């Protein structure tokens, strides 16, 4: 078998010369009651079978994407003096979180076609379908989605967020915000030379509510009736206890 591998390697000299060995500081994020966000460190090295001689320097792009879900984007307009939602566009899938970090300006590191192929920039990650013919400018809605999510810290772009040392070691840290959605987060690493992708690596981060958060969320969605009764009972008991305690304190 080994000779077959050798032939294959010999036959494909340009590819598989550089590969990625990477890991994350944590592959699980637990949302607890005191969760305030989490910093994930993505680090790794470039593995080479032989020295690579190339005129183009090695660059890297790292993306972290949260679970995708459809989103309705609405636009307000003035009707009879007040501002109300008049137009809406259903975005088929938009990640709840998206971070793009690179060693330099994104389109200096990667070409537009490679971006399209791998879906690296935010605009590629957001799918826009299903808007009616009444909408004159659907792109405006996608831009608004990105703008709003950027303002709340869910979409990040940092053009110097990845540091690459000696074309061998790379690292980037991504801050996950406090308003995190549960699910599987995908981390992708791309190595590029001359704006062409030479190697990719993909791994995941699991984000889950744990403990009390998990219990309450599950109960609220699976047994809403019991959850409702429980909320009422807890609230009444808490209110009564607080007033009783306060009365005791005043005495």
């Amino acid at each position, binding site marked *: 078998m080994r000779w077959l591998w050798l032939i294959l390697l010999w036959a494909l000299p340009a590819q598989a010369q550089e590969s990625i060995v990477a890991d994350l500081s944590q592959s699980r994020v637990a949302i607890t009651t005191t*969760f305030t966000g989490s910093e994930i460190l993505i680090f790794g090295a470039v593995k080479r079978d032989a020295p690579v001689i190339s005129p183009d320097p090695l660059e890297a792009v790292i993306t972290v994407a949260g679970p995708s879900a459809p989103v*309705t984007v609405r636009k307000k307009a003035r009707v009879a003096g*007040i*501002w*109300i939602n008049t137009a809406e566009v259903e975005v088929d899938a938009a990640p709840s979180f998206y971070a793009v970090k690179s060693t330099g300006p994104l389109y200096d590191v990667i070409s537009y076609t490679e971006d399209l192929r791998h879906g690296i920039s935010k605009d590629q990650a957001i799918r826009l379908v299903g808007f009616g013919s009444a909408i004159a400018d659907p792109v405006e809605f996608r831009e608004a*989605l990105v703008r*709003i999510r950027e303002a709340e810290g869910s979409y990040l772009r940092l053009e110097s967020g990845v540091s690459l040392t000696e074309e061998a070691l790379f690292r980037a840290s991504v801050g996950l915000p406090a308003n995190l959605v549960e699910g599987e987060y995908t981390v992708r690493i791309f190595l590029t030379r001359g704006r062409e992708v030479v190697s990719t690596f993909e791994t995941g981060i699991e984000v889950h509510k744990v403990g009390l958060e998990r219990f309450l*969320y599950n109960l609220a969605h699976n047994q809403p009736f019991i959850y*409702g009764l429980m909320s009422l009972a807890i609230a*009444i008991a808490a209110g009564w206890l607080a007033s009783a305690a306060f009365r005791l304190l005043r005495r």
Partner: protein
Amino acid sequence: MQIYLPIAEVSVNAFLLLGLGGMVGVLSGMFGVGGGFLMTPLLFFIGIPPAVAVATEANQIVASSFSGVLAHVRRKSVDFRMGTVLLIGGLVGAALGVVLFNYLKSMGQVDLLVKLCYVVFLGVVGGLMFIESLNAIRKSRKAAVKPVRRKHGLVHALPFKMRFRVSGLYISVIPPLLVGLAVGILAAIMGVGGGFIMVPAMIYLLGMPTKVVVGTSLFQIIFVTAFTTMLHATTNFTVDVVLAVLLLVGGVIGAQIGTQIGARMKAEQLRILLAAMVLLVCGKLAFDLLVMPSELFSLGAAGGH
């Protein structure tokens, strides 16, 4: 101390919530109102999703009214018969309100509906209260209070009369049913108990004596908001019990302090202050609707569940 709310899915400062609860509690203790009409807009301002704010506020009102009604039951200032009639109207109204709420939510107009309701009702109630208490202050300066004569209006001409012994009334059940219905709809849409609408309606429309009005309205509010909480919990999954408890603990303590402050002030002064506060909240919400927002776009979950 940051705390992650499991249903709202946002992280907020626990002391901020306790403080908000306490502040609204002080005001509600001072003026004898539930404070839902202040709390819900404040929750919008700190970034709680409107649907969660409305549903959770309903849950909180149940609890804060519960300790209030116990005190009134002990003082025998609850008209259970009138309360039950108001309640029947209220339950129907709450069901209608939640249906309307969910329908408009799917159309993306729920924020507008909630805010418009606030502007209209706060404006009307605040304005009337302001004028009325100004007149009262002017009259008290002129001294000599004229005796108030019981009016026999439309309320006495309608059929299905019923005797309400505690209130000392013999009137048709239709007006209280309608008052209950209106308050139920408001409770579901605005996330308020509706005391600020019901109390004036009971005094001026139904002619109930002032001493039983607060206890009776609290009695009705408990059941209507409990029903609303259950409806929101089972159809929208938007009741956040952690948020409710935090607001409540602050609110109950604040209410005790507020009652002490309120006892030292004159009734007319209190009412004019309350009216000013109601008009202030109304003005802020109206301003937001009329002025061009800095972000024309907003995001919402698509298609519902």
